[in-house]
């Protein structure tokens, strides 16, 4: 599980990188591609933003598993945990 504040932080990063309008709600269940209409290039932008913002490295192979905002938040939490361990 990832904390609500982390999910909100990830959602902000997604909104900023993919230029999602403010009137579009982003929840933890929002699907990046299907709900937020993020294309492959914007998705790369999102991933780069997440990497920079949270100072983590996203494994290329993990990208297909990161479907929703909560998937991203969970991945960030795991990576931070791994780095802290």
């Amino acid at each position, binding site marked *: 599980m990832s904390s609500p504040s982390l999910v909100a932080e990830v959602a902000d990063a997604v909104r900023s990188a993919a230029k999602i309008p403010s009137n579009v709600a982003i929840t933890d269940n929002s699907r990046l591609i299907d709900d937020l209409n993020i294309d*492959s290039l914007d*998705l*790369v932008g999102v991933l780069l933003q997440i990497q920079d913002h949270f100072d983590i490295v996203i494994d*290329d192979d993990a*990208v*297909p598993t990161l*479907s929703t905002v909560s998937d991203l938040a969970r991945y960030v939490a795991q990576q931070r945990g791994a780095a802290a361990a």
Partner: protein
Amino acid sequence: MQRRALNIRKGLLRIILPALRRLPLPLASRMVAGIGRTEYNLHSELRLAFQTAVERARTTLGCGWDISSTSLELAGNQVRWRTRDLLLDGVSDDRAGRMFLVDDRRHLDEALALGKGAIILACHFGAHLLPAHWLFREKYPLRFYMERPRHVSKYMARQFESEGPLGQDKLFISRQGDTAAAAGSILRASRVLQSGMLIYIAGDVRWAGQHSQPATFLGHTFHFSATWVNLAALTGAPVVPVFCQMQNDGRFHIEYHPRFHVPGDAVKTAQAAHWVQSYINLLEAQVRQHPTNSNEYFFWPAEDLPTEGETKAA
């Protein structure tokens, strides 16, 4: 050409290439072209198809090519092109090296020295895989970012066996890939560049999916993949165009062009179409100058011609 005839030629080449490699390689290369010229001389339908295509391109571009000799040489070079780098398989670096004339290598080395890797922008003009073969022979750190090329030499296939995060295997792309797979692939390619390596990508791939851009080529509008533009914009890596002509003496003439940079905002603006068109203009200039190296371009079906239904409706 009919598939059966292509298969016969492929079988013939498989048999005779090992023998041809024992000859001086420029001579062997000319003999491979001779197969195409012989087919051209023997098949009247094939001859007519070449001459019609060359005449159409000549009219479109307003060039003064001689149709008969250009068609004949083009037919010969098409077979050399389809042979890819197989003629150099199992050949020593020294013998292989003498098959190449390389101009302006400094453009490549200066681009690499910037420390952001470099995008080698290739295409299907001339001997399209031979610059990659030369780069491998010269020990440049190179990865392909395209569909996996088939029927290449065992030498090149061995270069594809690299593994790990920067390995080649996962950089071969598929037209069937979904959005997430495409994003993972671009991320991987950007890491290859960040590590200071070269990415070899084609700038003339007709593409119907996301991130294609229209450009005019040989008088018609086609949609081309803009992947190289996006990658260059995302990473800031320099782009170095390369062309490789199949010369009449049998050797391969590689020309590196000056590097350029794609601004970071190109993917978010109409600039991507501009960059694609700029490259296609560069390619078209090569075709004007060396029509006998144009391979299949003169045979491309036009995307922008009206369909039968549209013609009837009009």
